């Protein structure tokens, strides 16, 4: 049985529709990440699951029970907020115990459970302190403890790491992953950071303008993006896009554009002679061309960004900026001519007008 089911869910503020006819089933024990740019409705959707926003249309059920009209406290969920949302006037102990106290759990049991949870999260030394006396990472851990202690059916995380600095963010990300491994609680996690999404998720739900663009495992979404938006959003550095025209060749297809003609077998794609299509290649898939290599993209290195292990080389080809991520030792000089080639397996083709992937299912 699915832990969370959204069917035909809508959300509108007055005349503005934020979420449109959204259907989604989240399995038990699954770690699902809502990913998308700002304003795509991912936080709104999470808050609708939590009961902090009304559901304008459709139905949301958690654990087999329709929760549309249930109070947030009665939905069997716990939420961790971006800015921690701790009660500033209470000690850490009282912050963590607040929910249990409201449920009239006996004091002795509260004490036992708070101690158990704070041991798991390493918060024992701070139980007597106020939230302001803790660092950001510790505060977020308190927020997680406050969510954990309720032993919810579902954990909701609303961009929990975006207020932390980069190093702490990595650390907390690992902790959240470990926590999920040991607790196995169904988790919905909202972020705009694709690294978090890729590393944590069992499945990613990619949203744009309140519509699901693609649902899939991180690998699926990375390797087989369903449309132009997904392809452009996922992957750092960003995928290169070149608009090309399809031509029927002798034993395959040709793609003409950006000052070059590329030839491919094209067996994986639905192609038609004369179509305008978007060719997508991820920068790491461009390799320094050996002598006699086919499918060349060439130009002059305009910009070189050194990353340590590798370097991002940006060059112009037929008036189009293209980036290649190459090993640092193959890095060319600035303004030097560069030649890169790619394998047919690594390319993506999209319809230039609809943006849909042309890959055969």
């Amino acid at each position, binding site marked *: 049985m699915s832990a969370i089911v959204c069917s035909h869910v809508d959300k509108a503020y007055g005349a503005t529709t934020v979420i449109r006819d959204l259907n989604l089933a989240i399995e038990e024990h699954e770690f699902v990440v809502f990913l998308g740019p700002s304003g795509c409705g991912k936080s709104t959707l999470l808050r609708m699951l939590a009961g*902090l926003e009304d559901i304008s249309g459709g139905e949301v059920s958690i654990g087999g029970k329709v929760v549309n009209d249930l*109070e947030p406290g009665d939905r069997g969920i716990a939420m961790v907020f971006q800015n921690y949302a*701790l009660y500033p006037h209470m000690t850490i102990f009282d912050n963590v115990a607040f929910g249990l106290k*409201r449920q009239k759990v006996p004091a002795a049991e509260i004490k036992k459970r708070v101690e158990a949870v704070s041991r798991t999260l390493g918060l024992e030394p701070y139980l007597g302190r106020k939230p302001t006396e803790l660092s950001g990472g510790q505060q977020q851990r308190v927020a997680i403890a406050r969510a954990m202690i309720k032993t919810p059916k579902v954990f909701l995380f609303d961009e929990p790491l975006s207020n932390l600095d980069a190093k702490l963010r990595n650390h907390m990300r690992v902790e959240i992953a470990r926590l999920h491994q040991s607790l196995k609680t169904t988790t919905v996690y909202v972020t705009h950071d694709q690294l978090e999404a890729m590393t944590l998720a069992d499945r990613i739900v990619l949203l744009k303008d309140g519509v699901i663009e693609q649902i899939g495992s991180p690998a699926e979404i990375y390797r087989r993006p369903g449309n132009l938006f997904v392809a452009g959003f996922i992957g750092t550095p960003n995928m290169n896009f070149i608009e090309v025209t399809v031509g029927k060749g002798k034993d395959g297809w040709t793609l003409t554009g950006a000052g070059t003609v590329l030839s491919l077998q094209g067996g994986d794609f639905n192609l038609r002679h004369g179509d305008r299509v978007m060719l997508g290649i991820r920068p790491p898939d461009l390799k320094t061309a050996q002598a006699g290599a086919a499918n060349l993209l060439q130009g002059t290195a305009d910009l070189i960004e050194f990353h340590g292990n590798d370097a991002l080389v940006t060059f112009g080809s037929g008036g189009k900026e293209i980036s290649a991520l190459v090993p640092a030792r193959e890095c060319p000089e600035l303004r030097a001519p560069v030649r890169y080639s790619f394998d047919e397996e690594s390319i993506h083709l999209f319809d230039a007008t609809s943006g849909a992937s042309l890959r055969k299912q």
Partner: protein
Amino acid sequence: MRRRSSLPVTFLVPTLAILLVLSMVPTLYAIVIALQNRELSTTGYSWVWFSNFADLFLDRRFLNAVWVSVKWEVVTVVATMVVAIGLGVLMFEVAGPRLRNFYCLLFIIPVLLPRVSAAFVWKFAYHPLYGIATYPYRLITGGLIFDPLSKPATALFAVASVDVWQWGLFFAVIVLKLLETLPPQPIEAARLDHAKRWQIHAYVTLPMLKAPLISLMFVKMIESLRSFDLIYVMTRGGPGVATETLDMYAFSQGFIESGKVSYASAMAVLMMIATVITFTMLWKRVQA
């Protein structure tokens, strides 16, 4: 260094000097008069030192005035805060943004009325025959007379209600605005933590607003000390001495009944000392 430190002094000295003159001269003069036996009816006087103060503690009317003042202070401050918090929370919970603005405007009007006007309005509202505030009583009892301002048991509360009407409603607006400044996330977290509506306010929002609410209470405590105009218009301290606060009694001793300005000054000096001590102690406790 010297040049730099002289600038603040240049600006501060004249201002502070004026303030000092304005505040200290009347205070010192009151203390001096309190140690004499001046009366309005005669020009002569002599130094009696502390005998005015000694007399005060044997004056049953003075002791009554102290008790009335304490009652007035407690009743108005507590009632104002209860009304302010109650109404503020109620508006926060049930009213939408437009309705809130309307209520805020409505609730600010009473405090904009001059105190004397407010006092007259309510004096008439409490009129036993024509008043709107006593109208329900007449209606229910079939025309029986109820005169809250002339009954010792109710007079103080009737006058206090005007004070609360002015300040409680105004403070309700402030409490609402304070609630609106709070970050929404702790409130949402509390909703997820099974807190009921009233529990959210009792355990989360109001404790978060502890410091500004205490400041508001201090403002009201100081404001309540200046009850003179309201009481003067509505009851003149009556019936009997039921609403005779210290400033009311001092005024009637100094100017209305006997013209004993030295005796009245002694009262004023005592009030000042008591106020300074009480507020200093309260302030220290709150800070701790």
